[in-house]
């Protein structure tokens, strides 16, 4: 480690990283556009100017993203010279910027806005016509490019080159005619395009999915973990006040996902916002209809089933948290059996970047919690011989498919605790549970790293957490109902 002095404070800096990283690591923010900690540094936007004094040489203003740290270096991020240079730089960057902030999706989280507010003069001095470029350039299914807003920091170009290693973007033209583009307007492809909207420091690259959908200051950001594969990328779930999940974005995590996430995970919010949720409780009535019931009654029915039936099969969703897995394990043991979780086939999304191809976030954590993995064939065999089947956890019905329920013997009793509604004829007891943005817990990723999920909104009215339902069943299961009431 190298010792340098930043704003009067001696700090330790990693000699492998540029000066700007040392400043940021020690809480001294230096404005930056082209610099991104997850990408190579090109030093072209020139906004990250700080004053540096080394030895006897007079202090000079340098670009912090391309300046190596040196022992004893004295850095002032707040000097008049540094602010002056940044102000000049901003004036140049704003000269052709359309200033269409009122309708820009980036407004509120835009570095150009923020640094202009921090550093720049209030009045523009240009009376020249602003550059007219393409405002709605379609870059494929995910991204829309506004070339007028672009400040040509080239983060997007470097991201495509360096992270998915799929160089599809380039800077075309030269000098003041430079624009970001793809070769002959070829649409972008790949599973990592959404990151382009995150790396873009301004509103040039925006998600089609998020375009004109929300003002970012109305979003509540909750740190969580992605559910769509066993990488378990750290993410931020962003919800509107009405609870609608509007956006999911990666959160920096050196150990897991660096600064990125895949599009498959990013755009999985539709499933979270679906309105066909399972009732807090429903029971099959005498007429054979699944009818809403009091959850207390529903739990009593399940309890009775467990005490009466000798052969119960507990199958969990691989989306269960470690905590839910442990609660289930305990319940199964009290019934003299071992719980399993459904382990689907790998999908074809596996790549060398993040996606593991395992579509579930917590197979490892559930195994560690004492659950055994169960594939489709094992499930078919086990379910046909059980008296009673309990399917527990979100997305399990979709993973098994309707045919799997139809194949169940008619005499068998079926209890389902799920997020999405089901009126399948085989279901005897249905209880709604919170989905992954309505509960908190832990998932363990493919490498054994724990990732917390956190409730970003409350569960639907009356819906109780699965851990609570399981705990209620555990304390009383194995004993006949009569014994309890007497």
């Amino acid at each position, binding site marked *: 480690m190298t010792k340098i002095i930043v704003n009067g404070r001696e700090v330790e800096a990693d000699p492998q990283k540029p000066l700007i990283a040392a400043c940021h690591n020690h809480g001294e923010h230096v404005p930056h556009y082209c610099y991104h900690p997850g990408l190579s540094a090109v030093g*072209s936007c020139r906004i990250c100017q700080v004053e540096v004094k080394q030895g006897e040489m007079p202090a000079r203003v340098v670009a912090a993203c391309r300046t190596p740290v040196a022992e004893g270096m004295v850095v002032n991020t707040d000097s008049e010279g540094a602010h002056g240079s940044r102000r000049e730089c901003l004036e140049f960057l704003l000269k052709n910027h359309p200033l269409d902030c009122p309708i820009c999706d980036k407004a509120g989280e835009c570095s150009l806005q923020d640094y202009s507010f921090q550093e720049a003069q209030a009045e523009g001095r240009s009376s020249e016509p602003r550059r007219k470029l393409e405002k709605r350039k379609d870059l494929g299914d995910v991204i829309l490019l506004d070339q007028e807003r672009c400040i040509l920091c080239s983060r997007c170009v470097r991201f495509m080159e360096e992270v998915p290693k799929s160089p599809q973007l380039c800077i075309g033209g030269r*000098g003041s005619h430079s624009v970001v583009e793809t070769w002959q307007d070829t649409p972008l492809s790949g599973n990592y395009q959404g990151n382009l909207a995150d790396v873009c420091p301004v509103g040039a690259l925006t998600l089609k999915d998020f375009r004109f959908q929300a003002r970012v200051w109305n979003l509540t950001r909750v740190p969580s973990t992605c559910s769509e594969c066993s990488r378990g990328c750290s993410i931020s779930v962003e919800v509107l006040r009405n609870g609608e999940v509007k956006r999911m974005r990666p959160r920096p995590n050196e150990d897991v996902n660096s600064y990125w996430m895949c599009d498959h995970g990013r755009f999985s919010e539709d499933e979270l916002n679906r309105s066909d949720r399972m009732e807090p409780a429903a029971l099959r009535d005498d007429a054979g209809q699944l009818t809403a019931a009091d959850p207390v009654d529903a739990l009593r029915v399940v309890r009775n089933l467990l005490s009466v039936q000798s052969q119960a099969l507990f199958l969990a969703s691989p989306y269960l948290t470690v905590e839910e897995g442990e609660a289930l394990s305990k319940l199964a043991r009290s019934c003299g059996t071992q719980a399993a979780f459904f382990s689907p086939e790998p999908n074809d999304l596996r790549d060398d970047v993040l996606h593991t191809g395992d579509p579930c976030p917590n197979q490892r954590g559930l195994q560690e919690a004492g659950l055994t993995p169960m594939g489709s064939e094992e499930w078919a065999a086990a379910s046909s011989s059980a008296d009673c089947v309990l399917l527990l956890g979100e997305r399990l019905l979709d993973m098994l498919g309707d045919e799997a329920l139809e194949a169940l013997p008619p005499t068998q009793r079926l209890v389902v605790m799920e997020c999405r509604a089901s009126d399948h004829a085989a279901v005897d007891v249905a209880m709604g549970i919170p989905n992954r943005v309505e509960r908190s817990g832990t998932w363990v990723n493919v490498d054994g790293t724990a990732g917390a999920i956190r409730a970003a909104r409350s569960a639907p009215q009356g819906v109780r957490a699965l851990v609570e339902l399981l705990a209620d069943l555990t304390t009383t299961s194995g004993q006949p109902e009569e014994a309890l009431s007497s």
Partner: protein
Amino acid sequence: MTSHETYLLNRSKLADSHTLEVARADGAYGALRKVFETSMSPEDVVEEVKKSGLRGRGGAGFPTGLKWSFMPNHESDTRNRYMAVNADESEPGTCKDRVLLREDPHCLIEGCLIAAFAMRLDAVYVYVRGEYRLPYDRMQAALDEARAAGIIGDDVLGSGFSCEIHMHKGAGAYICGEETGLMESLEGKRGHPRPKPPFPAGFGLWGQPTTVNNVESIFNVPFILDRGADWFRTLGTESSPGNFLCGISGHVERPGVYEVPLGISARAIVEDLAGGIWKGRALKAWFPGGSSTGVLPADTLDTPMDHDSVKAAGSMFGTGAMIILDETASVVRSALVLARFYEHESCGQCSQCREGTEWLEQITDRMLSGQGKAGDVELLADLSNGMTPGKTICALSDAAAIPMLAALKHFRGEFEACIPTTAEAPV
């Protein structure tokens, strides 16, 4: 004053000077042979060039020998080592390397081989400006002749030393004359200058140790080795020894490329060699060393043409390419011409340069078309100061801002005259 010792252009005056036969008869490759025959070590050669005080002729005036000595030690660093000869001569006003490539390519090859021996290079790349068709063809033909004669390639002149020289044709971008832009271009990429550090001596072409030298700098090397550093120091000044090629253009009677010793007064070049200001007019302003060096007023014409003296006069020696403006010329108009050039040639990486070069051009253009506004002159100065010094990856931004600032400093009145007074302003 016009009778001074010359060496750079002597061979050029011979018929077919570009051929191996004529060049050899005139002593070409004698210095290289001398290096081998006198058993000089590579370090001895570097030392001799250092001792000569030769300063780079590409614009910055950095001591050539010192630059060579920055190459890492060949024992501790066994990577391949390269030199790129910068023949991408694109600075407005500068036209000296063209003459050397066209008329005496064998001297350049000899210089390259001596440099290659001194720095233990594996290969030399000559990056020639795309528009220089005849110079390129002459250079290529000379290489072919030299290769056939066993002068380049394996075992140069039976010395056991081997070096290859490759040609590369630029595609007409000014920025590829910037040394790191040149390297990017040679690697087949866009000519985007690289931030420094790392410097080329440590991380150059394909990440290997590399030196980039100007054609005229390398051209001086055979003479230094042949006649000695002490001889070289008898020419020019103490801090800027040797002769240089002054390309003089603009409003003079005889524009052209003249060989003169460093330290000669600008007036001697204009009046004695170039025949004075044309049409009997008076001088208004002059650029000492290409368009990127600040313009100077007429009363500075006695300035000696060497690095230190021109700097003291408030400008830069640059490439020694003088551009002369007579009394009828508009400094604002010439500022626009230059602003337009730099706007066209900015690579666009750095914010200040990409936006600033365009903005300077727009304001100057507007002022000349009668649309000047109060505050424009101050804005031109402010913007130029935002572009220099050293605020960007390479010096193109400085090159655009410096002539503007110099024009504003010495000829502010001409700019102010472009702003209509309130009474005249259109309603």
